[in-house]
């Protein structure tokens, strides 16, 4: 046929398997974020403390007689705890917009009308924030451990603290997953990402305030796990040992977080839907 029909034709090409469908959502989300300058600035800032910690390790090895700081499990745990600040910041941006923007612009209908399950959608969105949370916890943790190893002249450090990388991985994965779920669930509660931001800050401070209040009344350290941020802090004691101002309630914190995950999962299942039920 000399004249070709340039208009619509059916698609006879290849279709990928369903397993990696969530990755498409993650990848698009990441690409979109990386195109924003403010985000790149933010990411750069998250390396601030790890770089400082790196220099601490360097100085300890350069000037051992100064006894500047001890590189032990607590050092790594402390790094994880300090980076929790970025958990909060990343939770607000890009966290709050993850699902709320889609709700606002009716995009959920578009997603769910494709061959995607709700789980694909949620997993894809979780991975967006999850990757960054891991980036501020897992990556610096392992890099610092590697740095310490690199500077060590003997195997003393390795024999005592060989388990630290596993703890770093274990902690960062669980904390990232937990916090990611919380942020995602909150993001699904409103069409307005600003309200979600307020909700998130309110949750952190209100739970913190309540925990201190109950501690004042009961004088029992354990109540600190009412505070969400403290749950994450206490979780670090579970993986790294030691204890903080309120003792070591890592296990209890872990159980609370698991329970909280259940609530988040249920919320997400309810809120991510293509139909709006109007009473």
């Amino acid at each position, binding site marked *: 046929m000399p004249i070709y029909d340039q208009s*619509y034709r059916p698609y006879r090409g*290849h279709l990928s398997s*369903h397993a990696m469908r969530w990755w498409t959502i993650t990848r*698009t989300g990441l690409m979109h974020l990386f195109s924003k300058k403010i985000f790149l600035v933010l990411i750069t800032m998250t390396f601030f403390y790890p770089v400082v910690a790196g220099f601490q390790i360097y100085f300890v090895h350069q000037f051992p007689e100064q006894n500047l700081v001890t590189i032990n499990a607590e050092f790594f745990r402390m790094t994880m705890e300090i980076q929790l600040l970025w958990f909060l910041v990343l939770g607000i941006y890009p966290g709050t917009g993850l699902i709320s923007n889609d709700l606002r612009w009716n995009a959920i*209908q578009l997603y769910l009308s*494709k*061959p995607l399950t709700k789980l694909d959608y949620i997993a894809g969105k979780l991975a967006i924030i999850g990757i960054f949370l891991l980036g501020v916890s897992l990556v610096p943790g392992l890099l610092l451990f590697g740095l310490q190893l690199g500077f060590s002249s003997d195997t003393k450090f390795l024999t005592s603290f060989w388990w630290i990388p596993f703890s770093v991985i274990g902690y960062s994965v669980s904390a990232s997953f937990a916090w990611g779920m919380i942020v995602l669930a909150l993001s699904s509660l409103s069409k307005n990402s600003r309200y979600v931001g307020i909700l998130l800050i309110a949750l952190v401070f209100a739970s913190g305030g309540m925990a201190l209040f109950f501690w004042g009344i009961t004088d029992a350290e354990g109540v600190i796990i009412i505070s969400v941020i403290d749950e994450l802090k206490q979780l670090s004691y579970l993986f790294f040992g030691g204890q903080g101002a309120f003792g070591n309630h890592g296990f209890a914190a872990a159980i609370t977080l698991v329970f909280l995950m259940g609530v988040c999962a249920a919320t997400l299942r309810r809120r991510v839907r293509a139909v709006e039920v109007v009473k």
Partner: protein
Amino acid sequence: MVIEVRDITIQYGRHKALDAATAGFAEGAVGLLGPNGAGKTTLLKVLLGFLRPDSGSASVLGMSVPERPLDVRQAIGYMPEVDCHIPGLNAVQLCTYAGELCGMPRTEAIQRAHEALYYASLGEARYRPVETYSTGMKQRVKLAQALVHGPRIVFLDEPTNGLDPKGRIEMLDLIKDLSRRKGVNVVLSSHILRDVEEACSSVVMLSKGKVVRQGSIAELMKAVPDLYEVRLKGDSDPFTEAVVAAGASWKPLQDGLIEVSLLNGHGSEAIFRAASVSGSQVRHLSRRFPSLEDVFARAVGVE
């Protein structure tokens, strides 16, 4: 039938959104009609797998919807009525994304996105963010993203909303092209019955959750024999008097039309004769076909 629903019921408290609805959607373009609240949107959502019916079965292209929702959605394209887009993307990115979400590799998705956007007549604007688009452009993007993965059926919900007269004609032409020449089945949900008459070959009519009429438009709108509709220029009294004098009868319709009921055996020449005798100018003459609106009103039980 490309889509079949049998005894679908969905109940919210005491209100039945769908009440044992049974219908078959034929090949080509099918109009889905019904008053507000009749269950049209609910039915679409059942077919898309967004809602689970309390009872009954639904199958699309032979696949059962509750059992194989992903396969069904692979074969369907959906153009929602409401404004919807993925924030931060332009038309090309959105359509590419839509294709990738259906499993297309990225390079293929980009190509198909451009093709679909050309087909939907969205030109250079495709490189601007969708937030900046006019209503008409947003409609075109919604259509393009539904077509990217080459579905065998597309569900179009009020596709001509907000389009100016030229845009409406383009959209209807596109629907006709898809269903008549490109082998894509179309389910057109619309309140503008003229659009449905123009673009569809059959209809499914819902009312109060039940299917009240279905079938080919030609069947439903058969011309009534010996009944003609006439429009005249100027005063119609001389004409109507001549009609009566010839032994036929007439009655006024809306829009200045006159319905003339001829005697057996007489054809349209009786009308020309009446016009000639009375010196009237006939400007419009045709057999009386019920409009889809008449069929609709009768089916829904309203006069």
